Structures are given as structure tokens and as C-alpha cells.
């Protein structure tokens, strides 16, 4: 009942149109950008990235909601020689929305922000988020000053987004309209220290 109401309402505003399978999109993106450094926002985006295959170059958040983009910003500034992609959801992005302003100021060429947007807080029972209640996330990113924004509704665009990631030609914000589904959970490691150390080791860095 509730899900039907939500599915019906999801045709509102910027949400009108085709929607993608989240796992297909993320798996294709990472397959085409195998060297990218990935930071994931808590919840389903972390599961999507892990489901695509564990990589030493993945840094998964399980909490610290709002930290995905700031963490990606610090990482991108530290490693201009690497492609950095943040993969997060609309709820996590909304909690740290101001970080888009901080990203726009620095505009690291090697940073791509991918928001897989189902317009809902999936982890807590599929309550509607601002993104299905009128907010236009790509428009917000653009208004903060991020020069390049993309709205993706076609799985064929996953390869194009991967080329943006690997090209490192300018900060890009990508809003990916995904279906309101809950695929099987694929749980990445929850030991943040181990994930951090593994990630740094992949870059040839010591623990500290």
C-alpha cells in the first residue's frame, strides 16, 4: 500500500521519467573505471559498491552521514593523479548538502560525485526525501557553482559517466535516477580501521 503510493508519487517533478537499476548502474560504472578511488555514502550505496566486487580502492562509510562528499574532496585534493568518485544516495547527500559548495570552491578536476537517487530514505523504511518532494539535486549542485552536472536516466550512460570519472577534466556532479527497489543486502566490512589501512596500502601508504 505505502509502496504503491510512493511509486505513484515518484512521477512528481524532477523524478518523472525512466529509472535505472541501481546495481546495474554502479557495477557498470566501476567495471569501466577500475582504477578509481571510491568513497561510498552509508546505506544502500555502500552495498551497491560492495556488491559490484570488493576492491582495495573502496572506502565504505557505515555512519557519519554527510561525510561522503567531504571525504572525497579531501582525497581528491590529496591525489590529483587519481580519479576519485563519491557514490552516495539522495538522503546522505542532503544531510551534507553544503559540502557541494565547498567542492565548487576547490573544484578538483579529478572528483566526480554520483548520487544514486531514488527520492527516498531507503535504509529507514522508504520515507520520501526532499528529492521526491521538490528539490532538484543537480540544480542545487549547479547553483552552488559546480560547473558540470549530469542527469542520468539511461543505463547506456554508465559508460559515459565512467569516462568522465577517468578523464579527470573537471568536477562533475551526476544525479542518477534509480528505481525504488531494495536489492539483497551485500554488506561491506564494518571495521573502518581495516578498510582505511587497506585503502592506504593500495596507494603505497603506511598505516600512519
Amino acid at each position, binding site marked *: 500500500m505505502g509502496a504503491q503510493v510512493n511509486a505513484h508519487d515518484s512521477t512528481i517533478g524532477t523524478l518523472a521519467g525512466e529509472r535505472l537499476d541501481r546495481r546495474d548502474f554502479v557495477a557498470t560504472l566501476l567495471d569501466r573505471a577500475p582504477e578509481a578511488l571510491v568513497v561510498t555514502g552509508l546505506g544502500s550505496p555502500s552495498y551497491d559498491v560492495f556488491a559490484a566486487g570488493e576492491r582495495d580502492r573502496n572506502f565504505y562509510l557505515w555512519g557519519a552521514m554527510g561525510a561522503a562528499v567531504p571525504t572525497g574532496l*579531501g582525497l581528491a585534493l590529496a591525489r590529483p593523479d587519481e580519479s576519485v568518485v563519491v557514490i552516495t544516495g539522495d538522503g546522505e547527500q542532503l544531510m551534507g548538502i553544503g*559540502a557541494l559548495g565547498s567542492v565548487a570552491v576547490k573544484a578538483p578536476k579529478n572528483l566526480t560525485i554520483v548520487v544514486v537517487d531514488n527520492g527516498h530514505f531507503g535504509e529507514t523504511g522508504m520515507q520520501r526525501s526532499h528529492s521526491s518532494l521538490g528539490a532538484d539535486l543537480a540544480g542545487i549542485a549547479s547553483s552552488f557553482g559546480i560547473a558540470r552536472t549530469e542527469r542520468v536516466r539511461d543505463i547506456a550512460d554508465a559508460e559515459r559517466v565512467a569516462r568522465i570519472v577517468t578523464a579527470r577534466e573537471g568536477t562533475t556532479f551526476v544525479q542518477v535516477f534509480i528505481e525504488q527497489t531494495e536489492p539483497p543486502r551485500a554488506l561491506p566490512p564494518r571495521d573502518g580501521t581495516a578498510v582505511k589501512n587497506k585503502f592506504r596500502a593500495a596507494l603505497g601508504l603506511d598505516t600512519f
Partner: protein
Amino acid sequence: MNSTVSAPGWQKSVFDVLREGDVKQIAYVPDAGHSYAIQAAIADPGIEDVVLTTEEEGVGVVSGAWLGGQRAVLLMQSSGVGNCVNMFSLLEMCKFPFLTLVTMRGEYAEFNPWQIPMGSTTQQALELMGITVFRVDDPDQVGEVVSAAFDQAFLAGERVAVLLGQRLIGRKKWERK
């Protein structure tokens, strides 16, 4: 360094510790007590200055910098510590080395009572979230204390805050003439 910047010597000593310690990113929400370090970071081509819309972003930025192999610090005012509380989970869960320098409000000669609820609980809030707190009120000791905190963060891998007492910054002039 930009010779037009004038600031008390203790503010210069803060930036000297950061630069000599090979800090590559300085993330901040401005405060008068951090004026010198912010302007010096902006002027230094070897340091990325990262202006934030809220202090909690800075916890992510400095963690991301460390993931990529760089040292970074977060500059903020005591009120910003409250904004960061849940975000400090990131530091604890991943054992990131962390250094923040916090200029205090809500204590010495405070004019604005709205600063007091957070200023009076800043140290406790940091400690509750697992961050070691140093404090300095003597301008001659700022360089030493910041340097000690720096080593504890980046050589021992700890999470450390230095509270820069409001007396260092002095009385805020509220009447503009």
C-alpha cells in the same frame, strides 16, 4: 608569506607548526583567532585552503586527505565543535590521525551569552567523542602546545584538539565607531 597580514605572534606560531609539519590542507570555518593561518594558507601555493559551510565537513575533508597520504588540520571556533559531534564517529571508527585547533568563545570577557552554552561544554563534547584535549591561554606557550598536539596526532596517530583560550584573542570590540 603575505607581508600585509598583521597578527599577534602566537597566531604566526600556529601556522609555523603546520607548515613545518608538512600540512597540505587547512580546512576551516573562519574565526578571528585563525585569521593569520587562513590568510597564510590561502597565500601558500603548497597548501590547499578549504573553506567549509559547516565544521562537520572538515572532519571528512581531513580524513579524506589522510586516506590520500596528506596531513590536514581543521580550524574552527568552539561553537563548531557542537556541529561536528556525530561526524567525529568517522575518526573513532577508522582511527584517523586528527588535529583540530579551536578558538574559544563563551568564556573570558564574553559579551554574547549565546556563545556560552557551547563554549562552556566544548572540552567535554570533544572528550565524550574520544578526542584528547589540550588547552593554552599563554601566548608564549601556543607554539609549544600546538607542536605537542601535532606530534601526538601525526606521529602517534591520535585524535587531538587544542583549545586556544579566549583570553589569547582578547576582548571583542562590539562598538563600531
